């Protein structure tokens, strides 16, 4: 059986860009779908956002909970820590 897909959708705007780029960097082979106003990432299995990557792109300290401002939707169980947010199906 193929692995379940997790997904995350961001608004497609400048403030969300560091999060969008970080997801792209940290999840090789992820599929990216640009729809009007939004970007949808989908991955077989898990999907991760690392604080370190976002901070590198944005050039300042980041609280990963800033993601709430840019997020449109998610699919998967969420695991939230200081250093990462991970979406996963068991």
């Amino acid at each position, binding site marked *: 059986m193929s692995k379940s897909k997790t997904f995350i959708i961001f608004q497609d705007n400048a*403030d969300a860009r560091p999060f969008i780029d970080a997801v792209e960097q940290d999840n090789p082979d992820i599929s990216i779908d640009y729809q009007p*106003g939004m970007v949808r990432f989908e991955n077989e299995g898990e999907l991760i956002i690392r604080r370190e990557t976002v901070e590198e792109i944005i050039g300042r300290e980041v609280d990963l*909970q800033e993601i*709430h401002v*840019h997020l449109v*939707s*998610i699919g998967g169980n*969420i695991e939230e*820590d200081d250093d990462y947010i991970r979406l996963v199906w068991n």
Partner: protein
Amino acid sequence: MAVKKRLNMRKRYELLTRGLAWEPSYQPREKVFPYEDFEGIKITDWDKWEDPFRLTADSYWKYQAEKDKKLYAVMDSFAQNDGFLNVSDASYINALKIFIQGVSPLEYQAHRGFAHLARQFAGEGAQIACQMQSIDELRHIQTQIHTISNYNKYFTGMHDPFHMHDRVWYLSVPKSFMDDARTAGPFEFITSISFSFEYLLTNLLFVPFMSGAAHNGDMSTVTFGFSAQSDESRHMTLGLGIIKFLLEQHEDNVPIVQKWMDKHFWRSYRLLGIVSAMQDYMLTESPLSWKEGWKIYFEDNAGALFNDLSRYGIKMPKFHEVATAEADHLSHQVYSVFYAFSHAAGFQTTVPSAKKMDWLSEKYPDTFDKYYRPRWEMWAEMEKEGKRFFNGGLPLDCQVCQIPMVFTDVVNGNPMKPTHRVSEYKGDKYHTCSDGCRDIFENEPEKYVQALVPPQQIFQGNCGGETIPDVLNWYHFAADDGGEYHGSTDEKNWKKWHGEQSDSGSQEKA
């Protein structure tokens, strides 16, 4: 002098959100939380509750304020720059009319419902999550009213949505859905709204439709839509969290929860039939069809979810295969009802343009040309001859979902055969639109016989009078709110505004 590293998120969150409650001593616990037991749900330990997002109140306010600042900046600029002139076409606005009449009042009811839960759940983690959601829902209704009030200055049908919501025939579809959940116990309510509606299906409303709003130049609506949906991500995790919590608390909860999932999946799905029509027919340009959205947001996503829940013995909701089979037909059937009865609606409809029909043929290669295009072409012909088709009678509505009997036996390969069902209860006959709705009726007939079904109420003389104008007046519809879009006040204004604009300022606008 080593500076102590701050606590990690889990610990910090635990300290800030746990141990805030107390055991009641003046009154027995069951009197303080009187709604917790009667549904048969067994909670052995509320402390096992885990919040999926570890959002404390201070962060909550901070991020919500940021969301609102961004949203209101867009709304302001939209109003200031006459953004309404730049949407793809005035006919698109009809989808927003359905939104403010049909969806926004549900946000308010959800606010009330979660406030009730925040008080009635005995666990503090669940209380806080419900409190936040209650405030979110209030934010949604407020931002929707603020956004759409700008359109209300220029277009018809948006002047009295709450009055309409409680009375109008097609608005009884969303209203009865929410009333059903609101009159259930707290655990059924949260299964209905947070899980079946928000987790399973809300993406279909707030993602492709809002992306469609962006595609049609409506930057104001897309912004409130995505802003609301960002809260929705939190609500979805609450929905999944509560389901897992209930399933883990006691095995006796499993069959109860499964039954609620089955019921409210079908209720939510039927409600979203309206969204399918908005998505495929009312967006001038649709980036994604209902069927494509259904594949991504239901088939793939719910497939993964129920895979995950199968270890508790939970199965995909009953009749999900019917819903998936209907994806090829749903929007065409629902919009045809709107078309035929729009003389009694608070929005206008029209035959889809040639370009739109070609798009529908492309997206629905197995069904559109075969079943639906010929009817649209016939109706277009009738309109040309000055005989625009309106159904002069009143429809027979389903006793459960309250949609007129338009659905057919698609799942068994008979798309021309209606699935109208009849049940008997205490000597009276009750009509439902499908096996899904009949099942719901027959499980709780004593609840659904009380449903206020609009056509029956009109015939009984409870809706303002005997003629259609009497009823429309009682709805607070103005004479130019409904009917055919061609020749409507909205279309006339749209042409006038753009005619003037092409003389003076079209170059700057482009």
